[in-house]
């Protein structure tokens, strides 16, 4: 052991210093974000831009590690997302949320898809950009609602069930684009999609039916053993899912879904610190691959797309909250709360890294998330003061 260590000690030292510096910068950024009251994701992306390709400082040795840690971050993000929902909530969400979910999907996928085609990309990249603009950030939306103390509001259930539908829709969308990205012939692509969807359905069924048994099995475990078991299981299922082209992220999501009751609560508190660490490295490692110059070039595209898809999210919120009998002001609050895009958009864009227009897609997605993740929470905060309000209030009073 010792000779091996000695031989690599210089690389190890560099790797440690690089990693330590990056993580420390993230710590400062997380604090700044908390102070200013914006989500940390856009700041993490900026940090990645600055140290990555075309940035000020380059991280060499630890880049591979950060990339792998980032991939684990995606799994943990999706795992904790699945962990939040019980299967009852999913069933409920599916029953009541499908019509607004469909409006949301069409209204927000279309602008991204169209923009992709206008940029001269082919259908695969355009489909990815459609996904980027479609899905709101569950993490940012939940944080905004909590921070603004709107969880008790009448429009909130409609927002939350829309997020459930979007998350479930990802279980279908991710395997499909995964197959498209693989660039096989039409017949092979169709076969891959079918295999993937069958696998998703099978795991989903298993998660809903066998979830209680799995939770009972894990219940007596100590915290240490529970953490290891859950972490191992998530990685294992994610790996197997990737093996059958389902997308590892969805595998992790479904594992989270399967856990319930006391085990779910304990796991949430155990895995959260781990998720925060790995997820932060994911956003950094994604931004590593984005050239800061490219990003400036496409900033106008992202800004334009941000404005258009903020409007389309207002439509989603308006429709979803309206179905619950919420009045105009609440419907606008619902729409503004949904504007922020975040983790899912970056996960989707990261699928296209290897494509011909992948770098440009990455730059647009990063810029787009920067714009909407900052704009969304601000818009939500001032939703009650938007100019439309005076006139709506007058109408409501009349």
């Amino acid at each position, binding site marked *: 052991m010792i000779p091996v260590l000695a031989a690599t000690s210089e690389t190890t030292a560099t790797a440690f210093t690089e990693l330590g510096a990056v993580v420390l910068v993230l710590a400062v950024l997380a604090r700044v974000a908390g102070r200013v009251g914006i989500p940390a994701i856009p700041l993490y992306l900026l940090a990645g831009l600055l140290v990555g390709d075309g940035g000020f400082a380059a991280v060499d040795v630890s880049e591979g590690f950060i990339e792998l840690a980032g991939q684990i971050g995606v799994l943990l993000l999706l795992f904790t997302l699945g962990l*939040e*929902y019980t299967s009852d*909530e*999913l069933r*409920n*969400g599916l029953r009541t949320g499908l019509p607004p979910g469909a409006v949301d999907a069409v209204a927000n996928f279309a602008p991204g898809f169209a923009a992709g085609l206008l940029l001269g990309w082919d259908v695969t990249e355009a489909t990815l950009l459609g996904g980027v603009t479609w899905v709101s950030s*569950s993490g940012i939306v*939940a944080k905004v609602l909590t921070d603004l*103390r*709107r*969880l*008790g*509001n*009448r*429009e*909130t*259930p409609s927002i*939350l*069930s829309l*997020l*459930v539908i979007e998350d479930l829709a990802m279980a279908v969308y991710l395997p499909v684009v995964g197959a498209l990205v693989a660039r096989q012939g039409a017949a092979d692509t169709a076969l891959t999609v079918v295999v993937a969807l069958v696998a998703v359905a099978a795991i989903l069924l298993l998660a809903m039916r066998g979830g209680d048994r799995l939770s009972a099995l894990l219940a007596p475990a100590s915290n240490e053993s529970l953490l290891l078991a859950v972490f191992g299981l998530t990685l294992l299922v994610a790996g197997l899912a990737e093996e059958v082209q389902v997308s590892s992220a969805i595998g992790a999501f479904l594992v989270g879904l399967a856990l319930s009751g006391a085990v779910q*609560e304990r796991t*949430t508190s155990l895995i959260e610190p781990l998720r925060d660490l790995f997820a932060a490295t994911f956003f950094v490692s994604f931004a590593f691959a984005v050239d800061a110059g490219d990003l400036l070039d496409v900033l106008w595209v992202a800004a334009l797309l941000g404005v258009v898809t903020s409007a389309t999210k207002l439509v989603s919120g308006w429709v979803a909250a309206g179905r619950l009998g*919420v*009045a105009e*002001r*609440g419907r606008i*609050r619902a729409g503004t709360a949904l504007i922020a895009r975040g983790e899912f958009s970056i996960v989707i864009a990261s699928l296209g890294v290897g494509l011909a227009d992948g770098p440009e897609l990455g730059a647009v997605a990063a810029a787009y998330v920067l714009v909407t993740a900052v704009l969304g929470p601000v818009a939500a905060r001032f939703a*009650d003061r938007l100019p439309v309000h005076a006139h709506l*209030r007058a109408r*409501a009073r009349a």
Partner: protein
Amino acid sequence: MAEVTETKLPGVGIRYEFTTHDGVRLGVLHHHGGRREIVVYDEDDPDRASSVVELDADDGRTLSELLGATQVTEAVRAMQQRIEGLTLEWIELPARSSMVGQTIGTGELRSRTGASVVAVIRGETSVPAPGPEFVFEAGDVAVAVGTPEGLELLRVALRS
């Protein structure tokens, strides 16, 4: 009691709300982790929570005591002091309980568990000192006295 509506909040918890006699719309939000939020809705914009009080699990217990559970707790405390080593417990019978439709006597509850059912609360009424011929119904709340171990056995017998 006022009509209470229940709304599920996926990923967050459950919200209950009702209108007070004065016409104020009041809600209580149960988070999955045991946290509670008390919400008062805005008069101009009934969809908006105009004031919110956040309570952790402990605060929730304190508030519920202040709202009237105090007398019961005091009575229990006094009783526990009198009979050292014995505990008093409320056990609700779910509809699936095997004891529904059975008498206290057939269940041989006291000889099996060592704990006694000293009263049964059924809806608004209560039956003090039920005899062995007393028949349980779903939703009955049995008030039982015994050692902690005995009560645990009784809980299993009544709830499964």
